[in-house]
């Protein structure tokens, strides 16, 4: 297991190194940030001064080596737009994204588990059809539309919940639901199909024949074995929710990592773009590793090669 983890960590480092080159090149391909930073009245001298001050006048190779050299120590340089250390900005934003993603995932799991399991157990009934409708709506309704609708009606017209910003538990509900609902659909379908397969297996039939209570058969014996694909899906989506909730974070004025990425891209803030992409890649790598490790815990049959 340890060798497996070490190998995966090494692979992740190689991936991060490749990503650092790609993001460095692509960020610069978007154009010169000074045309956004400097006022319209800026002279050629102002441009030259700013370029020198921000280190943009150095050769690309030198800029890259400096970026990588500092990044390994957690220093991603200074934001060209906010003029603050990027690591500080990440530290400010990442926890907000993690909290929102955790909340959204909590909502997803809380909805998907009962619905998915019940849909499988009550296959072909009203519950099953209702679950399928929820699933279709969750995956087909655009997130930005759901978000705007919730803000307009639930927050603005009905005034039940806050419209935006982070201000206590209440402010998590609408963005969390918007993010989570999309995930519910996928989770529920996976659970349903997994449960249908497992419920038809020999060991479940045997448990029933032995007189094990139906509730125990479903929730203890069957569910556990239907979980592997669900965990993979939830893990991947958790990483996605943390890092790419740009629309939800924008609509709900949520200062998270997704918005930081958007602000960085729209202002050609190279250090921010580079830092966010590398952080995102690191999160995805860590979550994937955690998911792989979880497999072994859930299903003792799974053992990683020595």
């Amino acid at each position, binding site marked *: 297991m340890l060798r497996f983890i070490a190998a995966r960590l090494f692979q992740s480092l190689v991936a991060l190194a490749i990503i650092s080159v790609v993001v460095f090149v692509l960020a610069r391909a978007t*154009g*010169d*940030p000074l*045309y*956004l*930073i*400097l*006022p*319209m*009245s*800026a*002279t*050629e*001298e*102002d441009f030259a*001064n*700013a370029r*020198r*001050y921000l280190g943009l006048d150095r050769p690309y190779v030198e800029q890259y080596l400096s970026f990588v050299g500092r990044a390994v120590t957690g220093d991603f340089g200074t934001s060209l*737009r*906010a*003029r*603050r*250390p990027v690591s500080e*900005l990440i530290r*400010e*934003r990442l926890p907000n994204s993690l909290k929102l993603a955790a909340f959204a995932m909590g909502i997803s799991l809380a909805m998907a588990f*009962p619905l998915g399991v*019940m849909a499988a157990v009550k296959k072909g009934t*009203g*519950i099953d059809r209702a679950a399928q409708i929820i699933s279709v709506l969750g995956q087909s309704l655009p997130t930005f539309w759901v978000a*705007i609708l919730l*803000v*307009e009606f639930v*927050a*603005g*017209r009905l*005034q*039940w*919940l*806050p*419209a*935006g*910003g*982070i201000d*206590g*538990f*209440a402010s998590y*509900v609408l963005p969390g639901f918007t993010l989570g609902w999309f995930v519910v659909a996928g989770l529920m379908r996976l659970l349903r199909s997994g449960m249908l397969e497992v419920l038809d297996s020999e060991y479940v039939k045997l448990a029933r024949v032995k007189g094990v209570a139906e509730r125990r058969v479903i929730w203890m014996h069957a569910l556990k074995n239907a979980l592997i694909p669900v965990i993979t899906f939830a893990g991947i989506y958790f990483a996605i929710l943390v890092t790419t909730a740009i629309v939800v974070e*924008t*609509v*709900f*004025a949520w*200062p*998270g990592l997704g*918005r*930081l990425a958007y*602000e960085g891209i729209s202002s*050609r803030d190279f250090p921010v773009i580079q830092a966010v992409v590398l952080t995102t890649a690191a999160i995805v790598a860590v979550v994937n590793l955690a998911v792989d490790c979880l497999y072994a815990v859930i299903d003792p049959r799974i053992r990683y090669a020595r």
Partner: protein
Amino acid sequence: MKRASAMARVFLFLALLGVVFLGEGSAQPKTELTVAFSSFSTEVLDPALGGHIVKYYLSLMFDYLVGTTPDGQPSRDGGIATRWENSADYKRWTFHLRKGVKFHNGDELTSEDVKFSLLRAIGKRSTTGYAGPLRTLIQDIETPAPDRVVIVTKEPTLIIPTYLSRSLSTEGMVLPKKYIEAVGDDGFARKPVGSGPYKFVEQVTGSHIKLTAVDSHWRIGTPKYRNMTFRLVPEETTRIALLRRGEVDVADVSRERVGELEKEGFPIHYRREEAILTMWWVLGPNGLTSPVKDKRVREALNLAVDRAEIARSIFGGKADPAAVPLGLSWSFKDVGFKVTPEMAYPYDPARAKKLLADAGVAPGFSLDVYAYQLPGLPEGKTMAEAVAGYWEQLGIKTRLIPVDYPAFRKAWVDRATPGAVGYFNIANRDWIGAYALLEKMAYTPSKANDTVNDAEIDGMIAQVMRQTDKDKINALMRNVFTRLRGEHYGVPVVYLHSPYATSKTLGKWNVGRVMYDLFFDQLASGK
């Protein structure tokens, strides 16, 4: 089935419980003022790095050397300098400083702070709007006494007090020398200290900036609001929802949704003619290129545009047709310039076609039109498409080039696409601001930013800076505007009125006529 319905009841109960529980505590105390804006621009708290776009919150934390009334006039009551005078040769400007002013950390504000701030503002690291011209102009800064500072210029000039006032950028903001030297530039940017009526509490980038009032301030007395919070809310639906819920008191809204809010009884405060939306042609190495080098073609392109229709249908009637290229109308009163009815461009496609025929380009020509959104101008692309459509009707083959603004700006200053058209919503400003802009966009020696290349205008602009007789300056400025209009050096489209919605209980608020400043201190004034 029974189990499912029981589950549904539990969910419903929890949801209602949540609504009751979560609904509590959202009301704001009356001592708070919360402002929701779609953008904070750079979110930088250091005046030397933020530039003029973020003045509306910086003006609360910092005092200017020279104060300005909301109408943009220099004020002896609104700034650190209570009076100022010039030497006979207009090369030495002496400012007498207000006594007893303290920074939020307790340090006394002296002439050393003024000198330090100004040197910092015009330093090489600065990105303020007018650092360049001031750097060129200032020769020395003397501090003969703690309450007196003398600015020595290389040339005779009238403009020093205005350049260092609230009516332009942030160069006139006075910063604490000792504090900045102690904590460094980064420390200051993280935790700024000023001498204004509100002091810094916290900033969460991408979320909010929180300020708290000092007990009493010479500018506004005892502030009406104990705390002032600026919330960054990019989505308009969310800003309006926050306004409806009473969570914010002021929000910038689009021209499109003003009617709906007015119907609901929310007061709308307009900054009338906050910006001029004007188009211009990218110059070639030697100025305007064919066919727009021909004055008749330029006039034809102006006559082809139905500005009233654009104002009505694209800007929801919250705009007025503009007649003068680069015509910053807040300066017109200052210099005595009057836009006569004859100056307004009629919508006259027939005459436009004739002018093109006279110029020998009747079958039309190709014209690249850059189309992009701009901060505060979501209608930008639509406007460009509409104008291109009008030109198409003359037989001109327009090609819309969808880019972002920086891409156009690079093409413009590099003169990479001569004859192509771009545009900007240029913030309105007083005469000195207008002069500073013309000196960049209508003055050949400024090279990169020039959009005009006219020797006569160059001569007049060159005289303004050195002129010390205000009447002569006014005459020069009037002549510049007249020639810009007469020679059709651009396509002025509309003046934009910017709406700000407020809570129903906010009361009177003079949003003023000062570039990028909204005078929240006046709103909070206890005087």
